[in-house]
């Protein structure tokens, strides 16, 4: 069972980290669109939204790489889970308020023609990723991880 958990930890790291890395990679050289996507949620003051639009793709790349490599897994997992909570809130409020926007999750984003917005797919995806983040926060030990603590915990049988 413990062995299974370690492999599941690895799978979680690669899935969550892989999605974050791809999402960041698709946006980091198109930050005009990324800023537009963040503004379109109409949650933040425009200047803050523009700042987040620039920083977010790079943060996603960093978190994705750290998760894939298994370095500071616990902290990165916690941050990823928080990020997913923010995404779920953002998408839900856009849906509830009847905004017509593209989630901009993997590039693109901004307003779209009324009636063409799709909120269910990103909500389900982000909820699934949130679950993986929470799992990794609770059980950060996994196969092929750079974290020393996971090795030590392994030996202590934790």
């Amino acid at each position: 069972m413990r062995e299974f958990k370690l492999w599941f930890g690895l799978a979680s790291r690669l899935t969550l980290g892989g999605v974050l890395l791809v999402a960041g990679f698709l946006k980091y050289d198109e930050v005009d669109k990324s800023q537009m996507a963040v503004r379109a949620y109409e949650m933040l003051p425009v200047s803050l939204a523009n700042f987040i639009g620039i920083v977010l793709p790079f943060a996603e790349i960093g978190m994705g790489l750290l998760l894939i490599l298994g370095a500071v897994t616990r902290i990165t997992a916690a941050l990823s889970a928080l990020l997913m909570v923010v995404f779920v809130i953002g998408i839900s409020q856009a849906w509830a308020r009847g905004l017509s926007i593209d989630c901009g999750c993997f590039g693109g984003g901004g307003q779209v023609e009324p009636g063409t917005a799709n909120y269910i797919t990103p909500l389900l995806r982000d909820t699934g990723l949130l679950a993986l983040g929470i799992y990794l926060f609770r059980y950060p030990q996994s196969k092929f991880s750079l974290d020393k603590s996971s090795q030590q915990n392994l030996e202590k049988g934790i």
Partner: protein
Amino acid sequence: MSAKPQPGKDNFTRNLVIGVVLGVVLIMLVPTIISKQTKLAAKIPASVSAERGYGIVFNEELTGVPVIDIYEDFQCPSCARFEGTQGQYLDSIIEDKKATVVFHTLSFLGTESVLAANAAACSADQGKFLAFHKMLYQTQPQENSGAWTNEALVAAGESVGIKSKDYEECVTNGTYADWVGNVQASAAQSDVNSTPTVFINGKELDRNSYYDAAAFAAAVEQG
């Protein structure tokens, strides 16, 4: 417990990896943040007003007429549709001095948008912006297909009657590239989240009137 891991060594590798990842991300992030700042030293075309979001302005001097701000990207298909529906009307109210019209040529769709916006500014210096603007939309290629090179944009200028050597140099040298960035930065500050977006006297126009000639004209006349 026989195979004790070497804590020092393990920690070193891990910390090195963390350092490298964070370092690389920061090295990529900082120039991006800097490049998105408004560049006050940017060379701007003659018909541009920084107070009007760096847009290309027609009939700046008029007072008591509606001010129409149009945010567009030369590569955006909906903008081509908008130009197809409203272009002639806009030309006529500019000519008849019935409105102040500000064109904000955005560039969020990619490199070719930057080249096209730069060339449009060059055409404005030659007094041919409106004709060039129409020509680009009528011949709009697939997004970022590689069709809009500087050579192609020089040729497009010639096709609307621009013969000046200055125009060619302006396009080829990307004279107004920094200005293009300023237009985009200014639109970001004005919370423009899609193209086309139209403001009449500072109020965002309802999206349903964009592709309806009668509704658009009515909205302009109401002010």
